[in-house]
């Protein structure tokens, strides 16, 4: 069969495309890739799944979509994967986030959390030492100290870009550590609470003092590039970035990077998120069997070894399987342990201090969230850029959210 | 063959009746010229005959067959347009061959006919040029070539020479006349040029506002115009049409006398007048003379170079044999 696979254009996925020959050799099935930028991909597959278009046999989706789609029975359950696949090996945080009602609907290709990446040399210069699990107040202090505008060094680089998967994800994860939440148990928006205003004010004050110019439009890419060019003292972002910043080919600071858990505020929640890019099969495809074969191949330990053999252990897709972190070879990778610790410290089912009705760390796994969070994050970005005050942004966020929830029939 | 009978043909555009019901017969082999002022319906009449416009009422009969509803392509007529309407993207050869190709004639026959036509029209050397590379006169001949290859039952010409300069016009006029003599095919020719009408026509049809004012041979029209309109229209410079007491003396409301039928004298004559603007062409001289007897100045022709001073007093005498008399309705008496 010929499988059509929609996928995001991340490095690990691109690498997988280069490996498909192996799959074809093993099974006889061929593969057509539809590689799209993340946002475009999300629209594209969502349109297709909601209309039952059937344009794809396998879709690359995230932790956000999986439970929602699974609930709607739009995905083929992956509860009958073969023995050799060893589904139990999948990190529980991952399989938990990719299941609905206990059934796995997507197999994680790679998983990530977020953590602090910092410049050991700069930290030393600032006369400070990074604890393994720092607090926000330490981070803010360190950031201000490391900042050296003349040398073009910013103490801290964080996402500020609009978009729920960009700045929205970061600020939500951060707000968790400040005790904030999106909704109370009756689905009322919570942007009028002190916790949210504390979060944003803390963020903005710190970024104004120690962040890069134009941080309001910085996303993952922008910060990565800043960090690689040596322009950031600290960066809190996806664990997968660790392999990029320690790769001497692209990074000027490869040998000076240290890692730490994402900060907390002493309230029992850290500000790290949990995410996985996973492969799922839309219900109704004609090629279910072949699709399952592909998923087993792509998310198997064999695949990890195949990549390791060809491209080295640092380049294998991380965060999906427990066995990877038990592998001696992989343990040598400097960020491996910290990645695992970060992943393990995130709990999608209880991400907020106060109880909340939703599942998800940096998102709420309800269909409305993406739309709401995108708009809310746009208001936040505008506040970061100084186009409105934080109070205005929060007030608007509150209205946007409540309106949308009402439109969706939650109230 | 080519005998046309128009029976009560009329044409309206929307509410405007451009041609009121009209009867006209054109005999086979005749060279008929339509003349009339601009907008009088000459082109419209021609296009009705061609089938390019629907008649509003009446019938068009060609060679005894009723053709009113037959589309132009099937009437077997050729038309030469004022703008020539050559196909700019085709060579002269292809232009001429086009009607034959449309008639699905075979290649060899087409080639022969095109070359014959080209040699008749002196176009042999230009067969592979595009119309854009030809002079006005040559284009004209291509248009005619395209018309004659088909051996149509009649040729229709809509002011074919009006785009040419004076010298070329004279030449083309002669060529078309000669062609008519040779082919003896019916030709219907629209023009507003006096000289063309007079020199080419067997029969002139004078139109005004869609109505036929007179039909006849050129000299018939010149000699005995049926009414003041025709009288004023045929002949150049135009006939002097005079009203008032002088006219009544001849028992008419209006009398007409052509410039060439008035003689000038310094001593005596019928009408006394004062010389106004003079125009000297060398071969002729025209004088505009203001007579006491008439409101408007008279135009008088003298052959050759004649000098008359501005404001000189002279006497004019009309040649009574060529005096035209019209009644109150403008009709010839």
């Amino acid at each position, binding site marked *: 069969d010929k499988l059509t696979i929609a996928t995001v254009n991340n490095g690990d996925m691109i690498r997988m495309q280069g490996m498909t020959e192996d799959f074809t050799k093993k099974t006889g099935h061929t593969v057509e890739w539809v590689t799209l930028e993340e946002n475009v991909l999300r629209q594209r597959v969502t349109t297709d799944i909601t209309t039952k278009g059937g344009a794809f046999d396998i879709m690359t989706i995230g932790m956000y979509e999986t439970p929602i789609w699974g609930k709607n029975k739009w995905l083929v359950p992956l509860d009958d994967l073969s023995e050799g696949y060893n589904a139990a090996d999948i990190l529980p945080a991952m399989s938990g986030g990719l299941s609905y009602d206990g059934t796995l609907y997507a197999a994680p290709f790679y998983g990530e959390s977020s953590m602090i990446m910092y410049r050991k040399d700069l930290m030393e210069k600032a006369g400070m030492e990074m604890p393994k699990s720092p607090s926000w107040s330490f981070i803010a202090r360190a950031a201000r100290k490391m900042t050296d505008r003349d040398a073009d060094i910013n103490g801290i680089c964080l996402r500020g870009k609009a978009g729920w998967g960009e700045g929205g994800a970061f600020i939500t994860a951060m707000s968790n550590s400040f005790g904030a939440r999106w909704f109370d148990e009756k689905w009322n928006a919570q942007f009028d609470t002190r916790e949210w205003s504390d979060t944003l004010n803390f963020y903005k004050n710190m970024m104004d003092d120690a962040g890069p110019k134009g941080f309001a439009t910085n996303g993952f890419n922008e910060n990565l590039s800043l960090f690689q060019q040596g322009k950031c003292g600290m960066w809190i972002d996806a664990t997968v970035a660790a392999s990029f910043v320690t790769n001497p080919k692209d990074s000027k600071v490869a040998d000076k990077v240290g890692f730490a858990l994402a900060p907390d505020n002493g309230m029992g929640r850290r500000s790290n998120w949990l995410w996985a890019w996973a492969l799922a099969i839309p219900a109704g495809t004609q090629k279910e069997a072949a699709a399952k074969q592909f998923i087993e191949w792509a998310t198997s330990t064999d695949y990890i070894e195949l990549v390791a053999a060809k491209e080295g252990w640092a380049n294998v897709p991380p965060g999906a399987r427990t066995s990877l972190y038990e592998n001696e070879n992989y343990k040598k990778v400097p960020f491996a342990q910290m990645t695992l610790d970060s992943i393990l410290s995130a709990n999608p089912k209880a991400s907020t201090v106060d109880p909340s009705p939703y599942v998800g760390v940096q998102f709420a796994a309800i269909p409305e969230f993406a*739309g709401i969070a995108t708009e809310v994050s746009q208001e936040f970005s505008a506040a970061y850029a100084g186009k409105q005050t934080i109070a205005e942004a929060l007030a608007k966020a509150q209205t946007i959210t409540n309106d949308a929830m009402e439109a969706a029939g939650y109230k | 063959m080519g005998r046309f009978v128009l029976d009560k043909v009329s044409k309206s555009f929307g509410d405007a009746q451009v041609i009121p019901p009209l009867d006209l017969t054109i005999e086979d082999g005749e060279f008929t010229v339509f003349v009339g002022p601009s907008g009088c319906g000459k082109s419209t009449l021609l296009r009705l005959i061609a089938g390019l416009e*629907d008649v509003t009422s009446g019938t068009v009969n060609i060679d005894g067959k009723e053709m009113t509803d037959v589309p132009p392509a099937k009437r077997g007529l050729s038309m030469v347009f004022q703008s020539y309407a050559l196909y700019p993207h085709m060579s002269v050869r292809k232009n001429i061959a086009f009607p034959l190709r449309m008639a699905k004639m075979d290649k060899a026959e087409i080639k022969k006919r095109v070359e014959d036509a080209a040699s008749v029209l002196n176009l042999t050397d230009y067969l592979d040029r595009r119309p854009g590379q030809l002079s006005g006169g040559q284009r004209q001949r291509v248009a005619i070539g395209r018309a004659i290859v088909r051996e149509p039952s009649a040729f229709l010409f809509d002011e074919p020479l009006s785009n040419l300069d004076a010298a070329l016009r004279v030449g083309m006029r002669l060529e078309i006349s000669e062609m008519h003599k040779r082919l003896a095919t019916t030709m219907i020719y629209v023009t507003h040029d006096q000289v063309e009408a007079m020199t080419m026509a067997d029969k002139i049809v004078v139109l005004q506002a869609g109505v036929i004012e007179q039909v006849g041979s050129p000299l018939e029209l010149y000699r005995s115009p049926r009414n003041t309109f025709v009288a004023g229209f045929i002949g150049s410079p135009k006939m002097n049409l005079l009203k008032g007491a002088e006219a009544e003396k001849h028992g008419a409301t209006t009398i007409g006398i052509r410039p060439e039928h008035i003689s000038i004298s310094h001593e005596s004559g019928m009408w006394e007048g004062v010389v106004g603007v003079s125009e000297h062409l060398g071969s002729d001289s025209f004088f505009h003379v203001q007579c006491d007897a008439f409101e408007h100045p008279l135009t008088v022709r003298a052959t050759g170079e004649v000098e008359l001073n501005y404001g000189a007093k002279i006497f004019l005498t009309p040649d009574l044999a060529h005096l035209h008399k019209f009644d109150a309705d403008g009709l010839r008496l």
Partner: protein
Amino acid sequence: MATQHSRSAACMMMAPAVVLLLGWMLVPLIMTLFFSFKKYLPLRGDSLSDGLEWVGFLNYERFISSGSFWPSVQTTLIIVLSVLIITVTLGVLLALLLDQPMWGQGVVRILVIAPFFVMPTVSALVWKNMFMDPINGILAHLWKFFGAEPVLWLSEASLPSIIIIVSWQWLPFATLILLTAIQSLDSEQLEASEIDGAPKLKRFWHIILPHLSRSITIVILIQTIFVLAVFAEIFVTTGGAFGTKTLTYLIFQRVLDSQNIGLGSAGGVYAIILANIVAIFLMRIVGKNLDA
């Protein structure tokens, strides 16, 4: 010309185009109208086959009462107007310049029209990453070179940035049409005005500009149609943040981000109404000009 034959032929020959376009317009339009009166949240399990709940004008009320609606209309109009003003003004000037004798005219023309061939996505990407990036962008380097603080284009000057990108794409089009128009000006008219004693600037004002008016209306009409629909430029650069959310973009968010088809469809109907208000206004002008 118009005989019975040709008239009936004309009807037949128009038919395919008219029928196709009618279908292309009506089918989606009716479906959009239909959806706009329904609650249609596919992610919550609503689907056409199960039947959709009728909600009356609720979607319409919601859409218009949302805080984003009027700002988005305003943004749309600002973008369209600014782009029109910029492209037409610069287009006229550029066309005048290109009409002058110079060396290498052909090459300059090639340079000037090139942006028209660039896909909107690509041009947005290039502008965003390689020009307007506050750190690595050429413009930032340029500003720094002159000792100025780099402008944070996409956040601080977000709307102007979008306008710059869109104008850059459409300037060639305006220039080309206006250039052909200038070249078609009867030179005797200019000579006549010169003999009549008009100096250069007045010749431009009294002769050239009026001559261009037809072309300008056409440029305005076509560009309005395309600029009203501008999407990729916003999607790629600001993603609708910083006050760059146009009506089209807002509908996009409702339909695709929020997956609220009913609400989005109601927005679509508003967009159609807005477009038609603009269109009627434009068609008046152009319609008049098409006759003349």
